[in-house]
Structures are given as structure tokens and as C-alpha cells.
């Protein structure tokens, strides 16, 4: 039981962070139709920028978070403008290849500036832990769940209620009609990329505290794909459900089957889902008769 508590908590916190990164993925896919294979690497950027701001430049952690968010917005807008916009109208596979290239650039860039060895961990979440039925519950994990939940709720509300959020959904539905009612599709694309980078960077900052800053974070970021495939590529609630399920499954398999399985199980789920329900739990069913 103790072990179960512990695994559940770790699974939930990892899952919440995955949901953040996956939310960004879904935002980009919904608004612009691009499948962004670099989404996991935005996590990496977030962690390293936060590390650099806090421990290299000595900012207070709150300023370091703001720096991370600022870099994310700039990165998102620049990537949209200079990498994706020239690809408008190109083949979907070509666009996917470009985002894979982008992920290599981001990963390589981080190693170029920061080297390959793991960095000192920038701690900002509350230290210490709570004893619950014999299980050790670190406060930092609880805090991460709360922060991720708040950010996810805020973005979901933004997306369903606010004018800009609804404009994004409108663009996802019909670009031509959006133009003729006065929505600038370019601005919406830039906004989608900026917000996607921000959600992933917040996830990366949380991860930096919880697991340390190293190139391994990109591996964690890859698990975004099982999450979005499970939840549905175009579903915002799907990212939350998918993130939590994948996070928990990974921890349980590490705890009950054996260490190392947490790396494999999410991808087994991915393959299984693709075979059984390719549009995911909440994704839009697209059936084409040929």
C-alpha cells in the first residue's frame, strides 16, 4: 500500500507535467494542423533556461520563471515565423520532417551551450516531505501537481471561453471563414506556437526541480506522443486524461514489473491504441471512405 501511494503520487506529478507539454502539442495541431515533433524538446529548453537564469545568472526563482516564459514566447513566435510559415502549403510529411529537424537543433543547441554533463538542480519548489501511511510524499511533487493543474485549468478556460481562444478554435475549423470575419490567421498561428512553447516550458521548469537538469529530459519529452495518441490529437481534455493515465502506468510498471519498464510501457500503449482506436479516447473520429 505504501509503495502504491508513492508510485501514484510520482505518476500523477509526471502525468501532470506530460499533460502540460501535450496541451501545447494539441494547441499547435488544432490551430495550425502541424504535428510538432519538437514539442518534447521545448521541455528541455524550459529546464535549461530556468537553470541558467537561476544558477548561472543568479536570478530569484520567480524572475527565472518569467525569463523561461519570455524565452518560450520568443522561441514559439520565431519558430512559427521562420520555420513553419515558409512550409505552408507543403506536404504534411515535409512539415513533420522539419519539426524533427527542429528538435535535433534544439537538443543540439542545448548541448552546444551547456555541455553534455548533468547540471546542478535549481530548487524552488518547497523541500521536505510528508509521511502518509508510511509513504514519503515530497512536498515538491504535490506542488508540481497543483501548479500543473492550475495552468491546465487556465489554458482550458482560455481556449473555451475567451475571444482569442475561440478565435483559435475558429481558425482550426475554417481558415477562410476566419479571414472574412476579421481574424488574422497569422497572428493566431503565432499565438498557438507561443502558448504551446509556454506550456511546455512550464513543464520543463517543474521537471528541472523534480528530476534535475540533463539531456535525459528530452527522453521524458518523447512520452508526449503516447499521451496525445491516447487522449486524441485534437482534444484538450484528452491531454489531461492521457497525461495522467500514461504517468501512472509508467510508474506502476516501474514499481511492480521492474525498473526500466517505465520507458517501454508508454510506447506499448501507443502501439496498442493505434491498432484499436487510432483517433484516441477523445479525438475526433475521421473516417474516410475510399
Amino acid at each position, binding site marked *: 500500500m505504501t509503495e502504491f501511494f508513492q508510485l501514484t503520487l510520482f505518476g500523477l506529478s509526471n502525468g501532470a507535467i506530460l499533460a502540460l507539454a501535450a496541451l501545447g502539442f494539441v494547441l499547435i495541431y488544432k490551430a495550425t494542423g502541424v504535428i510538432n515533433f519538437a514539442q518534447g524538446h521545448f521541455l528541455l529548453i524550459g529546464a535549461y533556461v530556468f537553470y541558467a537564469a537561476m544558477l548561472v545568472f543568479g536570478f530569484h526563482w520567480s524572475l527565472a520563471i518569467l525569463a523561461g516564459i519570455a524565452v518560450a514566447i520568443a522561441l514559439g513566435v520565431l519558430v512559427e515565423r521562420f520555420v513553419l510559415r515558409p512550409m505552408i502549403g507543403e506536404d504534411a510529411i515535409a512539415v513533420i520532417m522539419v519539426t524533427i529537424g527542429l528538435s535535433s537543433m534544439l537538443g543540439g543547441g542545448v548541448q552546444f551551450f551547456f555541455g553534455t554533463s548533468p547540471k546542478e538542480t535549481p530548487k524552488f519548489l518547497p523541500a521536505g516531505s510528508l509521511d502518509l501511511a508510511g509513504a514519503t510524499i515530497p512536498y515538491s511533487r504535490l506542488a508540481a501537481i497543483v501548479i500543473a493543474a492550475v495552468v491546465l485549468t*487556465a489554458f482550458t*478556460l*482560455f481556449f473555451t*471561453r*475567451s*475571444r*482569442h*481562444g*475561440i*478565435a483559435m*478554435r*475558429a481558425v482550426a*475549423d*475554417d481558415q*477562410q*471563414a*476566419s*479571414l*472574412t*470575419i*476579421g*481574424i*488574422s*490567421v497569422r497572428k493566431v498561428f503565432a*499565438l498557438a506556437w507561443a502558448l504551446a512553447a509556454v506550456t511546455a516550458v512550464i513543464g520543463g521548469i517543474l521537471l528541472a526541480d523534480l528530476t534535475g537538469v540533463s539531456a535525459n529530459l528530452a527522453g521524458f519529452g518523447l512520452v508526449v506522443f503516447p499521451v496525445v495518441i491516447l487522449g486524441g490529437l485534437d482534444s484538450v481534455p484528452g491531454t489531461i486524461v492521457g497525461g495522467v493515465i500514461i504517468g501512472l502506468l509508467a510508474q506502476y510498471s516501474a514499481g511492480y514489473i521492474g525498473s526500466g519498464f517505465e520507458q517501454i510501457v508508454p510506447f506499448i500503449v501507443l502501439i496498442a491504441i493505434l491498432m484499436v482506436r487510432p483517433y484516441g479516447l477523445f479525438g475526433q473520429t475521421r473516417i474516410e471512405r475510399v
Partner: protein
Amino acid sequence: MISRAYQHPLNGSRMPPGETLLDVSGITLRFGGITALDDVSFRVTQGHVHAVIGPNGAGKSSLLNCLSGLYRPQQGSATLHTRAEGSSTTTSDLVRMKPHRIAALGVARSFQNIELFRHLTVLDNLMLGRHVHMRHRLLASLAWYGPARRQEIEHRELVEEVIDLLQIQAVRHTPVGALAYGFQKRVELGRALCLQPALLLLDEPMAGMNAEEKEDMARYILDVHELAGVTVMLIEHDMNVVMDISNRVSVLDFGALIADGSPAEVSSDPEVVKAYLGEELSE
């Protein structure tokens, strides 16, 4: 004569009735070797229902697409006359503007094949028609605080009046994709009206409808025109409807303007008769 109790004017143009609202001059549009529009010129007068007719492939929809910025003609201009409160007329050439800027000037439109946001509700679709009139910034929108909320309520009032005018109260919260075709056409008209248009472009608003639905739609268009005073430019195939509701008719054939005048003038024009019925082979 105006008897409705609506508070919000739907007409977004301050040009006096009878003056030129839109001056289309020498528009030429080519796709590769095909000339879709060949030196087309005419004027749309404030307060008119102006019909554009012509056989299939005459270039009617292409013309509308040029006016709303979706196509870029190689030559020509389309000058929209606008007037701010208490000031003189300013002109803007729609041909050189981006689509979302044209919408901000008050040129609203519907499409031949309905282009609605299928996954959003009727209400969301109509509220999106208010997009250009909403001014609050992104951060306020993210935080959903004061101004964002207040504005939303004001806009909602206007949207409710449009819902009332078009009699779509019952389907307010239904996702548009689930509605019947006739309703979708009405919602699309409603979304354009929510812009408070200076000029309303309707691309075949009655296409694919039965006689009764056509009659309803014609009545809504007349309401929009007579009660709300909106200038309407529409493409339509049904000649009876066109002759009934329009003040002026322009006729396109193979991309060229072959006639332009009152419905009576146009219907007796030999060129028009030839374009529609073909020519008798001379023995």
C-alpha cells in the same frame, strides 16, 4: 416605417443612401492562361440590393473573392467609401488589403458552400462575428477579468438581436455541424450581420433550397435591407428572386460584364438573353 425595437443598428456604413459605396473599376483576374474576370467595372450604391448574375463559371464568386481579399486580381481596384462619424469620406482599395483588414472595414460575407465553424455552437459562431469589434488585449482575455467580461455582455446583446431577427432562438446552443442546411445558411447570414456590415456580400444565399426555404431567406434578406438599412450585394441564380428583391443587377458572362442596370432593363437586354438562352443558329 421602421418598427422594430432593436437597439443596435446593424448597418455599419455612414454613407448617405444613394451615394456610391463601392466602386469596382477594371478588375482583371487571371489563373494561369484563364481569364476569370476581364476588366469588370460597376458601382454599388448605398442602400441598394445589388445582384450579380450570370451563367455557371461566369466569374461571380471570383469577383466576390476579390472583394473580400481571398483572391488578388492582377489589375483594377475596388474602392470602398467609408465615413467616420461627423467627418468626410475616406476611401480604401480593397484589392490591396489583407482579408482581415477588409473585414475590419465592415465588408462581411457568406459563402456558396457554407463556411461555418462546424464544431462551435451557433452562439459562438455569431460571437465570432463580433471579433473585429472586440478591443480588449490578449492578457485581459487570458485572465478573463473586468473589461473582457463587460464587453462580452454588450456584444451578446447585439448577437441576441440578430438571433431574434433570423429566428434561430431554438438552436442557440447547438453545434452548427448538427443543424439542417437551411438553418446553417441562416447562421452564416447571421454571423455576417454580427459584424455590423457596411457592405454585405452574399454568395448564393438560396442555393440548394426548396421554394419555401427560398421565400424565407428572401424575406430575411429584405428585412436586413429594409429594416436595418444594410447594403447587400448578392449572387443568385433564381431569376424570379433576383427580379423581385434587387434594385440593380450586374450580369457577368465568361468573366466580362455584359449588362448593368435595373432588373427591367437587364431582363430585356438581348446580350443577357443570349448569354442565358444561347443563340439561335442562323440558317
